[in-house]
């Protein structure tokens, strides 16, 4: 066994006993990976042991997902080995990994919504006789698999009719029925309510007893102590520590971030003015947003926290004109915006940085200059002709100011790193002179260095009298960057906290408030209930 691992799991929690660690079933041995010029993983060793839950912890962009993709055969390491049962193996594809008993439960579930629970569990290997599906065997095998995750549903229900939590259990049952010995759970709790998470953890405990090895990723630190055994902490693609899951949260954060949180967020020196720049009143979209009121003053940064699915992204998109809303108003600087018109929002000075940089923010094949100029293409034109040289030199200016690292502004956006790509989307609105910025996860997948630069940009916008509404799943970020924090849950605002004194616990308490009576969870859905 290699370096690291300074502390063995000293304090077993609950039923876990301090027997010596069983031999790992899966080991990533000094693996590294780079994409083009970017080193994503550097010399990382992780052991996954039967009956244990190995937690991967790190900020967005630390390399967790790359590591998981290596375990599940999607990526192959550039250096180092993948070892299964003590033998070095080549995982050339997801199939290779599955054959060795390694299954991954991704955030986006891999189910066919229109097919039944039984068919999904046995997808691709329905028992048949003479070419005809054997219904009785199908039902028996599916039932056995579902029993292992204690899921009591009608086998003939189309999977699409189940809630997300139960779909996840179907997916786990499917993996187990494929004899999975290693189960990789990629942020399984992100979309779950509190009680659904408890059900999932119950299943994890059961699988632990069955000696299934598990890898667990979560951004909820409190879940680590509840469910994990050992924690591998990643930062900027390197393994910085291996600690027991009982390690205090503060310590975990320190390891993850690498420095005190206070230094990570450059403080602003000015105070917000009185003038309300963005005024949102009673914004409602049936089933998604319920009577949201938000006021952001000139020079103010307002954070929006909440769990995935709380309606934060939907709120920003509605304000930006990207999505429709049923009632309510949006005013910018006293001027009312037309609903569902990005053009009118842009003209009024709104700049929207969407959450999915590549999917929604950039035209990857187009140049940096083109991407920076899209919002101002029409406004700077004359008689229908684009001002290409003017746009190019303005783009050059913004790129220099934002320190976008590139060969020149004619380079394709595709070739830049995540942080620099994010600066392009940001820069588009700097170029447009937008006074109201709606930022959706602006630092997701951005390395720490570029992240601080983005924070400085946010501060600069606020200092120049702009208003910023910031959505982030990164709690320390929301608290570190904002003046006040709004918390959403189930499409409603559940509270407001001053960022300077708020704690992560206070935010989390508000974020899960009412989450259980969320519209999409039907009352009879509790898997822990009723025997049949």
């Amino acid at each position: 066994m290699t370096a690291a691992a300074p502390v063995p799991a000293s304090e077993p929690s609950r039923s876990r006993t301090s027997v010596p660690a069983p031999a790992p079933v899966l080991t990533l041995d000094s693996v590294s990976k780079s994409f083009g010029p970017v080193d994503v993983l550097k010399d990382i060793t992780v052991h996954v042991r039967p009956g244990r839950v190995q937690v991967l912890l790190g900020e967005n962009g630390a390399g967790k997902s790359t590591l998981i993709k290596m375990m599940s055969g999607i990526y192959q390491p550039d250096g180092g080995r993948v070892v299964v049962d003590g033998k070095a193996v080549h995982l050339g594809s997801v199939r290779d990994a599955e054959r060795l008993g390694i299954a991954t439960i991704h955030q986006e579930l891999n189910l066919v919504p229109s097919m039944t629970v039984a068919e999904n569990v046995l997808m691709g290997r329905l028992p048949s006789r003479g070419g005809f599906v054997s219904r009785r065997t199908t039902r028996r095998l599916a039932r056995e698999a579902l029993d292992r995750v204690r899921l009591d549903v009608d086998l003939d229900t189309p999977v699409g009719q189940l809630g997300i939590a139960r779909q996840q259990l179907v997916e786990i049952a499917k993996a187990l029925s494929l004899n999975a010995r290693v189960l990789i759970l990629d942020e399984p709790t992100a979309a779950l309510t509190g009680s659904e998470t408890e059900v999932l953890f119950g299943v994890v405990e059961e699988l632990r007893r069955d000696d299934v090895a598990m890898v667990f990723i979560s951004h909820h630190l409190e879940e680590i102590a509840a469910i994990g055994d050992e924690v591998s902490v990643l930062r900027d693609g390197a393994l910085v520590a291996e600690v027991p899951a009982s390690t205090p949260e503060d310590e975990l954060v320190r390891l993850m971030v690498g420095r005190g949180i206070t230094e990570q967020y450059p403080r602003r020196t000015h105070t917000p003015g009185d003038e309300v720049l963005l005024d949102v009143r009673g914004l409602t979209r049936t089933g998604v947003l319920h009577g949201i009121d938000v006021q952001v003053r000139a020079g103010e940064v307002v954070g929006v926290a909440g769990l995935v699915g709380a309606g934060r992204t939907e709120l920003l998109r509605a304000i930006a004109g990207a999505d429709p809303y049923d009632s309510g108003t949006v005013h910018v600087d006293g001027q009312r915006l037309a609903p569902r018109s990005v053009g009118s929002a842009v003209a009024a000075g709104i700049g929207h940085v969407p959450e999915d940089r590549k999917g929604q923010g950039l035209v990857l094949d187009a140049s940096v200059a083109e991407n920076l100029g899209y919002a101002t293409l029409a406004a700077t034109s004359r008689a229908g002709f684009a001002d290409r040289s003017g746009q190019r030199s303005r783009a050059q200016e913004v790129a220099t100011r934002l320190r976008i690292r590139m060969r020149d502004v004619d380079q394709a956006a595709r070739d830049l790193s995540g942080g620099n790509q994010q600066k392009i989307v940001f820069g588009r609105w700097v170029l447009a002179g937008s006074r109201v910025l709606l930022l959706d996860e602006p630092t997701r997948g951005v390395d720490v260095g570029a992240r601080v630069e983005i924070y400085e940009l946010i501060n600069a916008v606020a200092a120049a009298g702009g208003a910023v509404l910031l959505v982030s799943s990164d709690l320390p970020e929301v608290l570190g960057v904002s003046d006040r924090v709004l918390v959403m849950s189930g499409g409603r605002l559940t509270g407001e906290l001053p960022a300077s004194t708020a704690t992560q616990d206070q935010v989390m308490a508000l974020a899960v408030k009412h989450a259980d009576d969320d519209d999409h969870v039907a009352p009879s859905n509790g898997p822990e209930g009723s025997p049949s």
Partner: protein
Amino acid sequence: MSGSSTIAPTKPSTQERRLRLPGLSGQLATTLLPFIGLLVLCLVLFILTPNFLTYGNLLNVGVQASTIAVMAFGMTFVIVAGGIDLSVGSVAALSGMLSAWMFATADLPGWLALVGGLLTGLVAGAVSGFAVAYGRLPAFIATLAMLSVARGLTLVISDGRPIRTSPAVSWLGSDVLGVPVPIIVLALAGIVTAVILNRTVIGRSMYAVGGNEEAARLSGIPVKRVLVTVFALSGLFAALAGMLIAGRLDSAQPQAASGYELDAIAAVVIGGASLSGGVGRASGTLVGALILAVIRNGLNVLGVSSFWQQVVIGLVIALAVFVDVLRRRGTRT
């Protein structure tokens, strides 16, 4: 690669990859490669048969290329914006036929019949565009429907018989100062296409919409308006091609331009455009159309049967797209 030294082997290889990467090589592949292909093709044909490189034959190639090229220029807008237009052949026939009908039956002046024909294409294209942008039909389906509707209307109007064209349309089949008018039209259409794509707001917006529709929309680009425009332009250019065909024959034929949509798409793709949108140039499309015309002409001059010509053209299309796939794979790793 062994796990012994992870730093040493990765560093140089990334360095190397960075140098070879995009920009130049991408530009090279999209514009220069098809052009080189065209030159090589001409050279081979010249060696095989000196008759190829005569002034008369080259004009011939130009005239043969003009119809497909004009259609393909229109198609370039659509493909750059991420769509496809299967209706251009039928729309060309309908425009030619309606123009002839306006002159022969409705007794409109010749020039008005010409303008009326062009408007026909513009409207047909705009209808497809509305179906795509506002009706949310896939472009493939919307234009497949238009293909059928336009061909049907052509047959209804003509009752299945050719109609004599107006003098204004017939003039398109003549020569000016020794240069065939179709070649002049081809040149003008190419210049207009290049200017629209490169210089205008709507043109640059087409690249944004084709490259990433959602990003374009969230940047405030009027995506629906762009989509209607590209299909309307495609219809207009198809109508112009229809006039060229009718002009050459002095009559509008009900079965004119059948299957031309596939040649037009092929020309655009051979010219380096991507069917997934966001990439494509007028110059590339011109070269693509010329390659198709040169192959047809060359094989004719060599006496190869038209059946085999189909086979060769199919292979050329596959080859062109394969080169594009290779290039993209190289850029993305």
